């Protein structure tokens, strides 16, 4: 399985889907998200593998 982390939430998805698909399924806007695997930035077309941990980083800040 693939572990997905976003803010204080963690969930699992089946391997083999793209980062873009995971972001869409989570109802997030890809314009305000970056994806990181093993501390490295990955592009939205990256296909996830079994055992991956994908961290979705929100980029919007400020007040």
């Amino acid at each position, binding site marked *: 399985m693939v572990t997905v982390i976003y803010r204080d939430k963690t969930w699992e998805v089946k391997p083999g889907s793209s980062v873009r698909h995971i972001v869409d399924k989570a109802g997030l*806007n890809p314009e*305000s998200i*970056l994806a990181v695997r093993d501390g490295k*930035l990955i*592009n939205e077309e990256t296909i996830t593998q079994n055992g991956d941990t994908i961290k979705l980083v929100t980029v*919007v800040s*400020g007040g």
Partner: protein
Amino acid sequence: MKCSRCGGTAVINMRQHRLRLCGEHFVEWFTSITQRTIEKHEMFDQTDRVLVAVSGGKDSLALWDVLLRLGYEAQGLYISLGIDGEIGYSDSSLHMCHQFVSEHHPEATLHVVDIEDEYGQSIPTLARTKQRGRGKPCSVCGLVKRHVMNRVARDGDFAAIATGHNLDDEVAVLMQNTLHWQTGYLARQAPVLKEREGLARKVKPLVRIYEREAAAYTLIRGIEYIYDECPYAKGSTTNFYKGLLNQLERKSSGAKQQFYLQFLQARTSGAVSFAEERDADLHPCRQCAQPTTAGDLCAFCRLWE
């Protein structure tokens, strides 16, 4: 997805530029865009000393890093506001700034001004005491930060104060000002606010950079930054507008960039013009000597009375 420059694996897709880049070429692109922005708007040059306002967040640390890599004499200024928000916000932010220096630029100078140590009260306490801001200290915070930045820049004889405002910050403000037809603000919103008597020049070298790109730069460069935003920024109007603009960007890539850059172009060319509020009578504050339009004391000094 392949890098448009070298064919390696891309880490970011910038649809508004039709550009997909690997980490190395993205850092090169980011650096080049920042340098071109500095030159185009004549913000400062290699002979100048620049004061970078750092918050421990991604934008200001990315800015400081890129300026140092470009060879500018850029010193950091961190203003400790005394905000806890049950996450030790100010302490964590300062820690990120120190960590940035020690890990990436040990030769760099970081100036720290602690508001409570210097003036006797933290920002949240001051806002509560003065009953300003309807439960949020943001207006007091802005006033204090502007004053302190100007003081440090003037005392240290810096040519400019550089802030990490990115294109998303600017376009969110532009949208708010347009929807409310704030013509005075629309006349003044610019990448450079020129120096005036007693007021240091302010520059925004990241105005061509999307917020997503500033975050990508820090991740690629291995710069740790504070992910938590200011506890008082939650539910802010600016973040609401940023959300709306990112929805627009998703449907129409380049919409944010076009809105902002064409606004600047239209104003520069004279296609649109706004009646700028006349410079009111600026005179030195009796206490701190910074320029003010108020009576004897400026708004900052009145806060501490």
